[in-house]
């Protein structure tokens, strides 16, 4: 257990170091939600029943989940070039823990996301967003679970496909319907029954609902623990799978 923690920290520190050498990517990832905030957010104020700061309480949680999904689902790309360069292989012929190879990387993606998420919330405050600290922390915990889930999924798929050309279309194909069916831009309750039925199977729909309840100041709402449970369980399964892929991955 000590070894796992130590190795994970080692990989995490290394990946963090590489990321901070090019910190521009942290901000590039933030640009898209920022555009939504600035260029789409004002539209919501005009919708009856959504007016004022209330609109941002519904909109910002959605944007946070979107940021989590898109910010971490594509982290597998650099891994493909690491594979090609033989870096992964070199690490595999060391006693380093296989879980650490994955968890250290997923940790870096999570740290970056939490920073971006916090930035987004802070930037939305001048627009009238109000949120309590406790529920905000719970939201960040949910985001962290999503980051671990999506980055591990991305790493696992990258190890499986071993090609950027195959990775890009696959991730795009998965991420867009997941995003739309999560009710990120508008709550799914506005949709017809069939759309709502499909979205009930989308874990991110539960995450968005939970984040909205948290921002509305209802941390006790059933949606919150359900989302944490669903995303947490999925993350555990995907992490196990991806760590096994790390142990097997050969060019």
């Amino acid at each position, binding site marked *: 257990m000590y*070894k796992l923690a130590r190795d994970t920290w080692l990989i995490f520190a290394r990946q963090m170091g*590489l990321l901070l050498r090019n910190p521009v990517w942290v901000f590039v990832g933030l640009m898209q939600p920022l555009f939504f905030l600035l260029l789409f957010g004002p539209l919501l104020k005009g919708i009856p029943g959504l007016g004022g700061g209330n609109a941002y309480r519904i909109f910002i949680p959605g944007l946070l989940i979107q940021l989590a999904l898109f910010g971490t689902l594509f982290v597998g790309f650099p891994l493909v070039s690491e594979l090609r360069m*033989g*870096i992964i292989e070199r690490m*595999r*012929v*060391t*006693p380093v823990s296989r879980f650490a190879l994955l968890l250290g990387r997923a940790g870096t993606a999570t740290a970056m996301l939490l920073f971006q998420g916090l930035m987004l919330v802070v930037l939305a405050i001048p627009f009238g967003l109000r949120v309590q600290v406790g529920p905000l922390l719970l939201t960040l915990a949910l985001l962290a679970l999503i980051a671990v889930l999506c980055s591990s999924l991305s790493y696992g798929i990258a190890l499986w496909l071993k090609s950027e050309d195959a990775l890009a279309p696959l991730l795009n194909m998965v991420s867009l319907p997941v995003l739309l069916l999560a009710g990120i831009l508008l709550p799914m309750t506005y949709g017809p029954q069939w759309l709502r039925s499909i979205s009930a199977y989308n874990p991110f729909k539960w995450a968005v609902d939970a984040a909205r309840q948290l921002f509305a100041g209802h941390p006790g709402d059933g949606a919150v623990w359900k989302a944490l449970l669903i995303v947490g369980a999925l993350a555990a399964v995907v992490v196990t799978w991806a760590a096994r892929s790390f142990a097997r991955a050969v060019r």
Partner: protein
Amino acid sequence: MIETKALRKSFRSRKQTVEAVRGVDLVVREGEIFGFLGPNGAGKTTTLRMLATLVEPDGGQATVAGVDLRRAPGEVRRRIGYVAQGGCTWDEVSAREELVMQARLFGVHKSDARRRAASAIDAFQLAEFADRHCKTYSGGQRRRVDIALGVVHQPKIVFLDEPTTGLDPQSRVHMWDEVRRLRAEGMTVFLTTHYLEEADALCDRVAIMDYGEIVAEGTPDELKREVAGDVVTLGVNGSAARAAELLSTEPYVRAAEVADENLRLYVDDGASSIPQILRLLDGAGLPLGSIELHRPSLDDVFLARTGRSLREA
């Protein structure tokens, strides 16, 4: 140091099964440079990767550094170093950072890892560029960094996969010196190569591999002695087959092989047989383009065992 018995591996691609390694038995002794020679696709790299725990064998046994490879690959990893074919560093980091990181992956403490990185930089003469980013290195420099990375934790055995492929002749000779230095420090070196001169000049013992099997094993001198006598290579401009027919029945010719449009004759004594060869060819009206007498090389060993020249395989 390494002992294998009937080590096997096949790969399935689509519906075809390729037997990459078909039962390899070999013994590598402590403190020697052991070379694995063979054409591309002979199974050298697959064998090396099996011994370095990267590929799981389908069958057979192996002991590496005193540990059963198949039962305890994790324990094998602690005792070996591995250097892959291509360079394997990020562009944006320096050799020093990478060396410290690599030592720490083996569980070495931070300050100790720094000290080891410094001594590796010293030993491999990397000081001049060790703090620059890896993307600025030349091919030879990168290769030296790769090898330094492979041995920074001071393993008992280091596996080098084609350590000099793609290097210019000067860097290659430099690399040979580094490999010899590793041996002088008491390390066992297992390397693959498809360069005959490299196997001949650098390795204490050589195994020649072809189509997934070892066709010869021994010191370069032993192997060459097996071929015996001298080799006469005749350039006979398209009539190699006729010349072979003519000469192979002569009593002083042990064997004749056509390779690269040339005829190679294995004879007991080159000096005395050349005049007779010339006389015979002249008598048959076969024009001679060139004639060359040399001691057998590892290529001749390969040719004698497989019927093909390594250069064309």
